[in-house]
Every structure is written in structure tokens, then in C-alpha cells.
């Protein structure tokens, strides 16, 4: 298969799959069969591109010219390659999980759910492969709109309100800031192509660089940089598979991916370091890292806690971009992978807890570890990755980010990274610790009587087995977290060219 065909296939296959499965609403088994086949085929298409990119090629395809000199066009470079691999790879696992979750939780409108999900993945892949800012922006907006029905899935008043916050913030920031920045860039540079070394050098100077950068990073509202972060906790009303793949991986990573792409290929690292116009962004990101972690500590709802943790972790990547040096962008790029694998594990576990034990609040999960050992073990591994402990992937990206901070002579930022790790210990470790080491309350109000309590434990183990599709995926991604630790040099090899200029 030629590379340009593979690019188009990767973007179109989810759409074709969506069209096919929308006709199978009455036949859930067939529908889910189509979903799984689509995910695997999409991933394989993405995978065929990897050797070419590793060889230094940048395969691409051009569709149609929208404005003079700007086309809808795709080109695969290392950062996009990495992001596409993660998004399409984790889509397979998430689809398995979604089947277990949606059926186990007796969700409504499952067909619409799977259709919108596929469209969202297609848009995320289009963002990953986009050759210029216009293509990226178009896919970015498609992603916002296609995830709206997923966020408001339950159709309740609460879902509607969350949908307003979600679309309100994402649309406002993207139209008001991002689009303005894009058109401004076009006006200044006469092009929007992602070009190694950037396109803005020589066209802007002084504070304009800082203003334009601000428009871009706040415009990419999906990066959830404070103060435009509120949509992410709001999006947690969605079914957990959505929170797991979209609001821990695809959607939020599109935001930080945009920031990285803009810094590397639009501004160029040299322009930012020579003007010093990204230093303010380092500290906005640092503030978001700390503040969101502190908020996370106080959230009892597990999904809300994870959402704030995501906000904090996303700013690591923004920080990497703001550092605007080799270590910073490689660390940021790597953290896309590390955080994706870690956080999706945590969300899978949170969803499994909802389906198996009907628990959403952290304080009600004491002693659950014995009933759901696999789930909590996976949670522990994911948590270690987020914290940044050795033998799990997350430690590497933090390491490179710290190196980047040192190179930029921003020693306080190293401190921020350390404090953030400590804070994430505070909000993640108790979840696992109290599940394993605390006794379950003598009797919950829904399980009266000691005798019943005993039999309930056995039920628990059976339950984990009964909901195997909810419990297996987090175990898979937990193994993924560990593998990422040992194979991080592969990621480094892939990403190394992006900072080469």
C-alpha cells in the first residue's frame, strides 16, 4: 500500500466503519464486530507509515485547494506519527472496553455512541497528519462537534449544561483566538505550512511574538491551559470510554499537539528562544500544573480527580513546548505517549469500578482491593506512571522535561516538576492504598449483614470475571505503561528529528 493511500485510509476507515455500523443498530454483535475490525484496520494503516517516517521520509497527500496557496493536505512527520499511533492503537483497546462498559452499564443510544466515537477518531488522525494549520483547524473543529453528542450522551439536564460548557469554551477559544492567530499568521507569513524551523522568523518581532503565541496556546482550548480548563471536568458526565480515550487521549492531546506543532513548525524554536517570548508561557503552564494538582486532591469523585490530574499533566507538554529547546519538545512529545497510556489505564479502572462495584466516589472504595485486585493493580501501575516513578514510562518524559528546564536556565521549573510529582502521590496513592489496606466499612447501607458481606466478596471476584471486557483493557494498558519504560529509546529515536530544525 502506498503511503498516501495509507494516510487517506487511516482517516477514512473510521468514517466508513461509522457508516456501516450505523446500519446495524438492531444487531449489537454485528455492530461491535464492525467496530473492532475498523479499529484494527485503522491501526494497521497507521502502522504501515511508521517505517517510512523512521527512514526520514515525510509521506503526504494533497486533497484540494481551499484558499490560494492553502490546501486540505496531509503529511506525516514524527510527532504526528507518534500521536496517530497512540490514538489508533488505544482505540482498539478502548473499543473492547466500550463494549463491556456500555453493555454492562446498560447505556442508551449505543449506535450513536459508536458512530460519533469513530468520527472523533477520524478527526484526531486528521489533526495528527495535517500538513498545514488550516487542515489542522478544520479537523480540530470537527473533533469538537463530533464529541458534543458523546459528552451529552445521557440527554439529561446535567448533560445539557455540561455540553454548554464544553462546546462553549472549546468553540469560543478556537474561533476567537485560534482562528484569529491562524489568519494573522497567514497574513504575516503568506503560508500556513508546517515547516521545520518555522515560518514566522523574519515576519514578526518583539511582543507580537508573545501575543501571537498567546492566541495560539489559549486558542487551542483543548490543551486545557488555565483559565480555559473548565470544559474538561464538565466533559466527565460522558460515559467512561469517552473520558478514557477522548478526554485523556485524543481530544486533549489534540490540544497540546497543536501547541507543540505551532511552536516547532510555525514559530520555530530559535525565534522563541532568541526573543524570550515564551517564558511567560512556562510560568502559566507551571501554575496550571500545580493548581490543577491541588484541586485534584480535594475531588472525591474519581473521574473528576482524574480530570484535574489530566489538566495538570497536559501542562507538562505545554511547558515542554514553552521551553522551546530540544529536550523540552522531545520531553513534551514523549509525554503525549506516556500520559496517554497512564491516564487511559486510570480511567478504564474508574469505569470498571462504576460497572462492577457501582462506585464513583473515592471515599467509598475502601477495601475494594480484595474484590477487584486486577483493577486496582492496574490502577497502581497507571498511577506510578503519572507520578513519574521508575520502571513505568512516565519517568522518562519528566526526566527530559527537567533537562529542558535546566537548559533554559529555569531552575524553579524543575522544582515545579518535583512538587507536582509529590502532589500526584497525594491524590493517586490513597485510592489504591485504602482499597488494599483499609477494611471495607462493616456494612454499606446496601449490603446489610455480615453473612451477606462474606458472600459478597466471592461475588466481587466473579464480577471482575463477568465483566472481563471492563477489567482486561486496563491490565493491557498497564503492561503498556511498563513496556514504555523499557522501550523509551524507540520513542526518542522517532522524535529526535523534530527539534533538528
Amino acid at each position, binding site marked *: 500500500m502506498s503511503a498516501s493511500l495509507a494516510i487517506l485510509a487511516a482517516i477514512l476507515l473510521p468514517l466508513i466503519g461509522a457508516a456501516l455500523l450505523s446500519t446495524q443498530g438492531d444487531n449489537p454483535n454485528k455492530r461491535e464486530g464492525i467496530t473492532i475490525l475498523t479499529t484494527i484496520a485503522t491501526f494497521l494503516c497507521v502502522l504501515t507509515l511508521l517505517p517510512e517516517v523512521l527512514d526520514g521520509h515525510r509521506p503526504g497527500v494533497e486533497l*484540494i485547494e*481551499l*484558499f490560494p496557496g492553502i490546501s486540505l493536505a496531509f503529511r506525516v512527520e514524527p510527532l504526528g506519527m507518534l500521536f496517530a499511533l497512540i490514538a489508533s492503537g488505544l482505540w482498539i483497546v478502548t473499543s473492547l472496553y466500550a463494549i463491556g462498559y456500555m453493555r454492562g452499564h446498560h447505556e442508551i443510544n449505543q449506535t450513536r455512541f459508536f458512530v460519533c466515537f469513530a468520527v472523533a477518531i477520524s478527526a484526531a488522525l486528521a489533526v495528527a497528519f495535517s500538513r498545514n494549520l488550516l487542515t489542522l483547524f478544520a479537523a480540530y473543529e*470537527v473533533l469538537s*462537534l463530533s464529541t458534543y453528542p458523546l459528552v451529552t450522551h445521557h440527554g439529561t439536564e446535567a*448533560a445539557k449544561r455540561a455540553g454548554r460548557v464544553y*462546546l462553549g469554551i472549546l468553540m469560543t477559544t478556537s*474561533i476567537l483566538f485560534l482562528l484569529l492567530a491562524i489568519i494573522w499568521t497567514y*497574513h504575516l507569513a503568506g503560508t500556513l505550512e508546517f515547516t521545520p524551523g518555522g515560518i514566522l522568523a523574519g515576519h514578526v518581532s518583539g511582543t507580537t511574538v508573545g501575543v501571537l503565541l498567546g492566541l495560539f496556546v489559549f486558542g487551542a482550548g483543548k490543551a486545557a491551559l488555565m483559565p480555559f480548563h473548565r470544559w474538561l471536568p464538565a466533559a466527565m458526565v460522558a460515559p467512561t470510554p469517552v473520558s478514557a480515550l477522548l478526554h485523556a487521549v485524543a481530544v486533549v492531546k489534540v490540544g497540546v499537539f497543536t501547541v507543540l506543532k505551532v511552536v516547532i513548525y510555525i514559530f520555530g524554536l530559535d525565534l522563541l528562544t532568541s526573543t524570550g517570548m515564551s517564558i511567560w508561557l512556562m510560568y502559566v503552564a507551571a501554575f496550571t500544573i500545580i493548581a490543577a494538582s491541588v484541586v485534584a486532591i480535594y475531588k472525591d469523585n474519581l473521574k473528576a480527580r482524574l480530570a484535574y490530574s489530566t489538566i495538570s499533566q497536559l501542562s507538562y507538554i505545554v511547558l515542554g513546548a514553552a521551553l522551546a529547546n530540544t529536550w523540552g519538545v522531545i520531553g513534551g512529545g514523549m509525554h503525549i505517549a506516556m500520559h496517554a497510556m497512564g491516564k487511559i489505564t486510570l480511567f478504564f479502572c474508574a469505569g470498571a469500578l462504576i460497572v462492577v462495584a457501582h462506585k464513583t466516589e473515592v471515599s467509598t472504595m475502601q477495601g475494594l482491593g480484595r474484590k477487584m485486585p486486577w483493577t486496582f493493580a492496574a490502577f497502581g501501575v497507571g498511577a506510578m506512571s503519572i507520578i513519574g516513578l521508575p520502571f513505568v514510562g512516565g519517568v522518562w518524559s519528566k526526566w527530559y522535561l527537567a533537562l529542558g528546564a535546566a537548559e533554559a536556565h529555569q531552575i524553579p521549573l524543575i522544582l515545579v516538576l518535583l512538587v507536582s510529582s509529590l502532589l500526584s502521590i497525594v491524590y493517586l496513592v490513597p485510592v489504591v492504598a485504602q482499597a488494599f489496606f483499609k477494611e471495607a466499612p462493616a456494612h454499606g447501607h446496601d449490603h446489610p449483614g455480615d453473612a451477606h458481606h462474606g458472600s459478597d466478596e466471592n461475588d466481587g471476584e466473579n464480577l471482575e470475571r463477568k465483566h472481563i471486557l471492563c477489567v482486561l483493557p486496563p491490565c493491557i494498558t498497564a503492561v503498556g505503561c511498563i513496556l514504555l519504560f523499557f522501550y523509551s529509546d524507540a520513542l526518542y529515536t522517532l522524535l529526535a528529528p523534530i527539534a533538528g530544525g
Partner: protein
Amino acid sequence: MSQLPVFQILLPLLAAPLSVILRRKTLVWQLATGVAWASLIIAWNLLQEVQANGPIAYHIGGWAPPFGIEYRIDILNAFVLLIVTGIAAVVFPYARRSVEAEIPAEKHHLFYAALLLCLTGLLGIVITGDAFNVFVFLEVASLSTYSLISLGKDKRSLTSAFQYLVMGTMGGTSILIGIGLMYAVTGSLNMEDLAIRMAAMEDKRTLLVAFTFFCVGISLKLAVFPLHQWLPNAYTYAPSTVTAFVAATFTKVSFYVLLRVIFTLFGADLAFLDLHFDKVLLVLGLLGVFTGSLVAIYQENIKRMLAYSSVAQIGYMIIGISFYSVNGLTGGIVHLFNHALMKGGLFMVMGCILLRLGSVQLSDMRGLGRRMPLTMAAFVVGGLSLIGVPLTVGFVSKWYLILAALENNLWPVALLMLVSSLLAVMYIWRVIEVAYFQKPDDDAPELREAPTSMLVTTWIMVGATVVFGVFTEQTAGVARQAAAFLLGVSP
């Protein structure tokens, strides 16, 4: 010499009395639809010819200008002809079921006759190169529109038609005075000829007065803020077909006349350098955008909401002129096309809803997303286009307008236009939330989807907003040529 230009007018003009004679409603509808399609084919051929060989001059009856009447077709009006006939070709097939439901059977042949006359008038305004001819056709189109609006089912359609009649007549008179003044000082009515003679005149005083009368008159017809008062009522209470057709064409044709008057007749130097008319247009355009959008947010009647949205969209086109640059004019002209598609499509959706639901009040639309899924989906797509989401036509217009604002260093204007798209998000999403998130009353009747003929044509129109949002060569590309032509620069 090809006789195509005159057939562009003759076909609908002759079909109008013919339909009064034929009387049978199906036959009359078939005739009107056939004429609309034939007109579209003619307009398409004219555009091809203009693009290949440059402007066409057609002398009526062989009388040479400036004494005879000349039809003059260049890239700009060829494009507008195509838009008007294209809209007619989609709306006329749509009309049958909607008209059956809204107009008494004994008036059907008169309705189609008036509709054909309206088409004749609109095409005449666009095609002619004679200033007085513009006025005549403008009155043909206006008079038929007044009567079409008054046919609406709601009694208030009569008063709104009357209001429009009063305002429209004032506009028409103002234009006539402008023409009279020009004729008095130059002795000519042919636009080419007028432009040459007026440019040569030393004393510009009379011309300035004529220009002012012209602009006020056209602004009334175009519903430029604050002369838009007639529009919301007229659009709200007119029969669905009329709203869809008139909203998509009449303001566009008026916008075309404004372009002609400024750029061809009086010259941009007089308008922008002597009179600073661009500043006036910019301010009025922005005011129109914001008043229109803000008022739209508070409307309960969705047809009225869309009507106020039209006031805002006209504002965008006006802003496009005010930039006085290729990109600005491209944005204005392409928005002329794009807005015709989106507003035509959205009003067609309203016609479908009115037919089945019997109301276009927001409170009656609860749960409509499930009750009429295809119709509401069309509303969503059209609405997204109105907001200006990428890969829809709205985005194309917005891109050019904002780029032009930045080129002129008017970044606050760029920001204001972006803010106004957010207002569009608000008024569109209000409808979407009610239609998809609220449950209908328990005693709400089961609804069927709209009839196939209406649904298909509505989707053609709405689908076009996406198709032309991606394939921009035939719209933005042509608009760019037209803009360059008006400014006298190479594209």
C-alpha cells in the same frame, strides 16, 4: 450574435401570463419549475462565455447604446445570475407541497405567476446595463414580492406586506430620484456611458446628491441597518416558499446593485476618497451584525430569528465592501453566494417544519430532533454553516473578511467579527438544545418527516453549503475574479 441574454429574461416573463392562462395548478408548477431550470442552464452558459471571452454586450432590438437598451454581462453579474437561477431551480420544485398547504387552491396559478414575475424582475436588475431599466425591473420584482408576502396564511402577513410596500416604495423613489439627477446632468441612462460622462465632469455636486439618493434607496431594499425594519416581519409572515426564495435572492440582488453603483457607476474614488463612504459602511455593517445577532438570540419565532440573522449577514457583506480591497470584496461577493445557500436552506427547513408541525415557535419544537430527524439534521448543518465552521461555506466568507480586516490593520474589526460568530453559535444552539434535549409534551401528535420533494430539495440546498465549503474554486475563485474586475486590478 447569441440570443441567450434576452432569453434569460423572456422565458420567465412569458411564462408568468401563460401560467395565468393555464390555471391548472400542477401544470403551472411544472411550467415554473421548467422555466427555472432552463434559466439556470442559460445562466451557466453565460458565465462560461464570459469567463472564456470577456464581457457580453447585447443590444435589445438591435438599437445601439446609449439610445437603445443594452444588456451587459461581465463576470460579476454572470455570477449573480447563476446564483438567482440556481436558487430558483431548487426552490421551485420544493414549492409544490408547501404551496398546497399554505395557499388556497384557487390562487395557485396567480402565486406561480407572481413568483415568475419576481424571478423576471430579479434577473432583469442583474442583467441590464441601463440605469432606468434597473429601476423598472426593481419595481417588477418588488411589486410581485409585496403580493407574494401578502398571501401568507397568518393575517399579519397583510400588514407586513404593507409595511414593506411603504418602505420599498420609498426606496424605489429614492433610486428614481438618483437616476433622474444623473440623467439631468449627463443626458444618458446607459451605465457604461454614464460612468464615462460622470468621470469627466468637473462639478461633482449633483453627482454626490444622486449617489446619496441611490445609496439610501438600495440600502432600504438591501435592509442595511438601520433601514432593515421591514425585513423581519416580511420574512416571518410570508409563505415558506416566498421566504426561502426572497431571502436567498432579493437582498443579494440589491447588494449587487450597490456594488455596481459604487464601483461601476460613480467610481470607488468618489465614494470612498471624497465621501468616505467606506467608513459609513463599516460602522453600519458592524452595527447590523451585532444588532441582528443579538436580537436573533431572543426570538421565539425561529423564522423571525433567521430573519434577524439575515440582517447580521447583510452586515458582513457591507463590511466586505468597506475594506476596499480584493480580499474584502471577495469576501463580500462570496458571502452573497454563501448566504443565499445557507439562508435559503434554513428557511426551507422552516417550511418543512411549518408543514408538519404547524408552527415555527421554539417552544413547539421540543424533541423535534427525534420527531423529524432528517429535517432537524438539515437545520444543524445549515446552522453550522451560518456559524462558519470549517468545511462549510460560512467559513470561506469569514476567512476572506477577517484576512481583509487584518490587511487593513483593523484588528478590532477582525475580533468583532469573530465575536459575532459566537453570537451565531448562541442562537443556533438554542434551537438545537430544544430540539434534541427537551421532551415533547405527552399529547404531542406523532409527526411524519416532510414530503420527499421538500426534503430532497432542502437537503440539496443545505448539502451545497458543505460542498461549496470544500470546493471553493467555482465560488470564491469566481468572486475573486469579480472583485479584481471591479477594482480594475489583475486577479
